[in-house]
């Protein structure tokens, strides 16, 4: 069995948004749409204040509410734990957007124009238009095409850059680690053994595949 998950070490994260930018570029997402982003939390009141940076995105839940909601099975759970979307099947009802407690999903109906309607599409926007994604649900895919390429070519997702999501590849603080939680020797399993961690909205019992390390054991 394999289950790919993301581990974010929030001791390491500094909120630089390099992952946000890398994800946007790799996936050519629309202006304003961020499959991966880093939130800026402030906890407490002056002078006892803490600030934490929290990467978020699709949690690739074990018990994915989006997949349960989807009337078309366009959103589905892969055997390797990745929640995927078949864009050609999706009708764009947006029910999955309402079902996701992580606000990880979007629907964009118009072609990407970073500088707005007045300027049309830039060359690179035309080059990677991703028209299959127009008017249907979209979200973080864990860069699934890299995972598939990697497993087909003997690479280890989370270790080999060509088989690792762009966000984890780009993270300059090495805060994001991707890997197979079912493999006890994987990078993510080791991190989870040596750190205290939490999952966001654990009370909703989604079986989130996104772990936040907050202290060394």
């Amino acid at each position, binding site marked *: 069995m394999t289950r790919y998950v993301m581990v974010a*070490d*929030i*001791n390491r994260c500094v909120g630089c948004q390099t992952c946000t930018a890398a994800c946007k570029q790799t996936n050519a997402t629309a202006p304003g749409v961020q499959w991966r982003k880093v*939130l*800026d*939390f*402030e*906890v*407490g009141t002056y002078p006892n204040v*803490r600030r*934490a940076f*929290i990467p*978020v995105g699709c949690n690739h839940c074990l018990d994915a*509410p989006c*997949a*349960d*909601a*989807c*009337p*078309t*099975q*366009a959103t589905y759970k892969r055997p390797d734990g990745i929640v995927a979307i078949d864009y050609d*099947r*999706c*009708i*764009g*009802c*947006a*029910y999955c*957007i*309402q*079902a*996701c*407690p*992580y*606000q990880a999903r979007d*629907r964009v*109906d118009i072609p990407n124009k970073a500088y707005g309607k007045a300027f049309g599409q830039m060359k690179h926007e035309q080059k990677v238009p991703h028209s299959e994604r*127009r*008017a*249907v649900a979209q979200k973080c895919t864990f860069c699934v095409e890299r995972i598939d390429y990697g497993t087909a070519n003997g690479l280890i997702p989370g270790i080999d850059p060509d088989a690792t999501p762009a966000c984890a590849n780009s993270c300059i603080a090495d805060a994001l680690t991707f890997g197979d939680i079912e493999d006890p020797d994987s990078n993510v399993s080791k991190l989870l053994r040596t750190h*205290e961690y*939490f999952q*966001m*909205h*654990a*009370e*909703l019992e*989604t079986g989130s595949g996104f772990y*936040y*390390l*907050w*202290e*060394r054991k």
Partner: protein
Amino acid sequence: MMLAPTLQKRWDWRAAGNFICGGSGSGLMIMAALLTLIGLHASGYALLASALVATGLGLVWLEIGRPLRSMNVFRNPRRSWMTREGLVATVLLPLGVLAFLSESTALSIPLLIMAAVAAALFLYAQARILHMAKGIPAWRTDAINPLIVSTGLTEGMGIVLIFAGLVQGNVAALFSGYGWILALALVFLRGAAWINYRYSLANNAPEATLQVLDRAHSVIALLGVAAPIVLLFLGKSYPAYQLPLAAAAGFFMVLCGWFCKYQIILHAAYSQGYAISHTPARGGGKPGPGLKPGWRLPQ
């Protein structure tokens, strides 16, 4: 950037329209069947009920991103209540139309009853659609189910009351028989479901959701509960004015239901927001408490 729950923008008035029209329509189908069983002439409502349900689905069709692929909606009956809603509608709509078109009561009544069964499933499916939207605390509570079902029925009854005057004798029959008691009971039931719904969210929903529901409460209590009850009792007491009083009571019963659903689907529908249960230990420092912005109490 918002960490606290934000209002969902993806479903607009068209989606709300489906819950409004679909709820009222399916409720009306059920009420029509019930009233026919207690002797009223109500099969005419079946067409209106079907039309309402169809209108609701039409509004959804206008909202989806890929309307040409809309038939894919039927592809997840095993898990999706949206698929189930669609499937039931394919039964409900023709049955309703047939019940209306049938000349003989021998045919129309069974058809109407079958349509009502489908309508009940449809109404339940609508409730469960909201219930399964885990991302919206105002929807995902168990208490959404009785509320959506009871308001659908109440709206259906309301429509019956509004148009009762169109068929000779229906108004009088409603007040002399169980009709008005049924109406009263539905108003009470929906009131109870509303209170139950709010209670279920009391510490279990974003602050912003609770504020919207607080504001909605007085409207619902006054126009959705008090007004129909007073009007129905007045109608019982003053037979000469039964027709306008019934219509007025029905109007408020419908209006309140629509208002309630509009509020829940468009205005109270804040997302879950983001939360952390700990702030990290930074280097040699200590970890700290977490935060759930936009929520009254930590969960």
